[in-house]
């Protein structure tokens, strides 16, 4: 292969410096520091160390790890959807309201039965019907965006209000109040409900127990497993990573966000890409809601409030550029860890007012956005 290259290039640069040579020096280290996720990764490491110093055991004991990962996983699930869509150059501000809507839909069906008097709802039926509705709404949002060429910011902002309002109305109409509580503990009896609300990776805590690191005051095993949402996060993020970095549609997503006109001129179905990704964020919001409903057996109209902004923020911290075309799922995994950890752990540090966490997150977001902008300039505006 190398020989063809040299033959073909006969007339260029034989002996003297050509343009291409200027980039040859990029070794593994330079490649590493130029990866889009490097900033988020460094931030995460610093944060982990600081937390160990400031809060210590409370954060890293078996229960601390479980609780932190539950928060991180929840955020990670919706951040994955938000990140894919942002790379394709669009926003979805309806994620939080979609979570509330999906939770309402599932809980109301579980409590009051299927629509049209079709009898009691199983967890599977409640989930599938809800998923059909949310995917349809995602399709609608995406279709409005690509057909009207309105900014997705405005279209999805409209749906932020529309869905939140619809959620409250549905709650009152079908349930009488804006919350459902006291559902049976489906995860104990129903395999499907346990997939969302149960525990996962129990072996991890079994091993810790066996090592003598995981016992309660009575000497029995303390924590028994991670929340199922951790597994969902890993599956969704893993699938998204694979699609984005290894498949054809992944290249279409980057192309759509990087230069939509160019993508279209080269035959990329940019509208289909966008609509599918709006449906994907709706899917992620529905999974988020399912893990919540089947874990706590409750739902209320305020669920998911502001989550869309947290998802976007975690994506930005993970290196995704607001204007699209650049970013990685691995970065967003780190971004979700940073966000989740800070949200959950600052409260363990006794000498800090817990409310500083928002101030801190805002600062992290700003720094991340600035560094992303530097990266973007380096690629688009020359060196």
């Amino acid at each position, binding site marked *: *292969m190398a020989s*063809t*290259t*040299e*033959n*073909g*290039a006969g*007339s*260029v*640069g034989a002996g003297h410096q*050509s*343009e*291409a*040579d200027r*980039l*040859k020096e*990029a070794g593994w280290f330079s490649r590493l520091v130029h990866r889009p996720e490097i900033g988020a990764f460094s931030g995460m490491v610093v944060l982990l160390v600081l937390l160990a110093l400031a809060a210590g055991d409370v954060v890293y004991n078996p229960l601390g790890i479980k609780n932190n990962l539950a928060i991180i996983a929840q955020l990670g699930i919706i951040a994955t959807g938000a990140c894919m869509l942002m790379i394709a150059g669009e926003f979805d501000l309806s994620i939080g309201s979609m979570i509330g809507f999906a939770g309402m839909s599932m809980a109301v069906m579980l409590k009051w039965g299927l629509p049209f008097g079709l009898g009691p709802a199983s967890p599977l039926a409640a989930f599938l019907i809800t998923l059909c509705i949310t995917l349809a709404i995602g399709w609608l949002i995406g279709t409005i965006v690509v057909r009207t060429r309105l900014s997705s910011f405005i279209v999805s902002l409209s749906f932020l209000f529309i869905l939140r309002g619809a959620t409250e109305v549905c709650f009152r109409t079908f349930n009488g109040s804006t919350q459902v509580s006291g559902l049976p503990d489906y995860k104990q009896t129903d395999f499907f409900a346990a997939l969302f609300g149960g525990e996962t990776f129990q072996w991890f805590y079994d091993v810790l127990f066996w090592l003598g690191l995981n016992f309660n005051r009575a000497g029995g095993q303390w924590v028994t497993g991670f929340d199922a949402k951790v597994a969902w996060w890993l599956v969704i993020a893993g699938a998204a990573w694979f*699609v984005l970095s*290894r*498949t*054809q*549609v*992944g*290249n*279409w997503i*980057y*192309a759509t966000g*990087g*230069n939509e*006109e*160019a*993508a279209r*001129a*080269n*035959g*990329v179905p940019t509208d289909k890409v966008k609509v599918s990704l709006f449906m994907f964020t709706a899917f992620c919001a529905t999974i988020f809601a399912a893990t919540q409903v089947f874990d706590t057996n409750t739902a209320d109209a305020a669920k998911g409030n502001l989550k869309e902004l947290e998802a976007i923020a975690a994506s930005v911290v993970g290196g995704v*550029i607001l204007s699209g*075309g*650049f970013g990685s799922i691995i970065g967003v995994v780190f971004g979700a860890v940073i966000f989740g950890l800070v949200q959950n752990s600052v409260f363990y540090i006794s000498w800090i007012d817990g409310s500083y966490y928002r101030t801190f997150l805002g600062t992290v977001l700003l720094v991340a956005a600035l560094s992303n902008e530097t990266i*973007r300039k*380096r*690629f*688009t505006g*020359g*060196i």
Partner: protein
Amino acid sequence: MSEPLIRLENIVKRFGNFTALGGVSMEVHPGEVHALLGDNGAGKSTLIKVLAGVHQPTSGAIHVDGQPVVFRNPLAASDAGIGTVYQDLALNPLTSVTRNFFMGREITKGTRPFGILQTAEMNRITREEMARIGINIADPEQAVGTMSGGQKQTLAIARAIFFGARVLILDEPTSALGQKQQLEVLKTIKQVRSRGDIAIILITHNEVHAQLVADRYTFLSLGQVIGSGVAEDLGGEDIRRLMAGGAQMADLEEELAAIH
């Protein structure tokens, strides 16, 4: 003399009352660079848009390989082997050279659109195709944004050729570049020309660049062909005069001389 790959016969394009092209005829031969010159508003852009299938001519005919063709849309033109490299190059600066080269036409294993990218093969092809027209890229996975303007132009040209362009339309390929980069692009054009099977239509403002690579000229002014010919028959003076719109320029020079 080879058969013309593409022949335009009396192409007229009107937009309402405005006649953008008033009966343009030209021939483009494989292995030749055909320079299309003219001042702003001469109709160059309209002509290439007709060739690229963006506009349909009001009257007149386009022949490819001697057969009359009608391009209803850009896709039809590109299927007929007409590759247009516009000034913005249709690239995504934030992703790799390979990802841009294969944008929308990726080599995959498995079912569309979730087929797995054959990255190693695509990298190899990208590197080879770029090298064939004279640019040696060190790393096909580098971001396009890190390439020089000339390299980007080469990437867009290599891509058009690889995906079947036999007529390559280059729209002001040297206009936004520095001196050295301009020469690099001209070198690329000559490399493509030397393959012998591709016809190049070079749209430019710059008569020096045209003289360096062109075999044949067509001069447009106000939607009309005001001169054409092969390079050997045209002197630099002719080229400069025709480029500026012929007689208009002489008038302007007189007017200029009249002002003190």
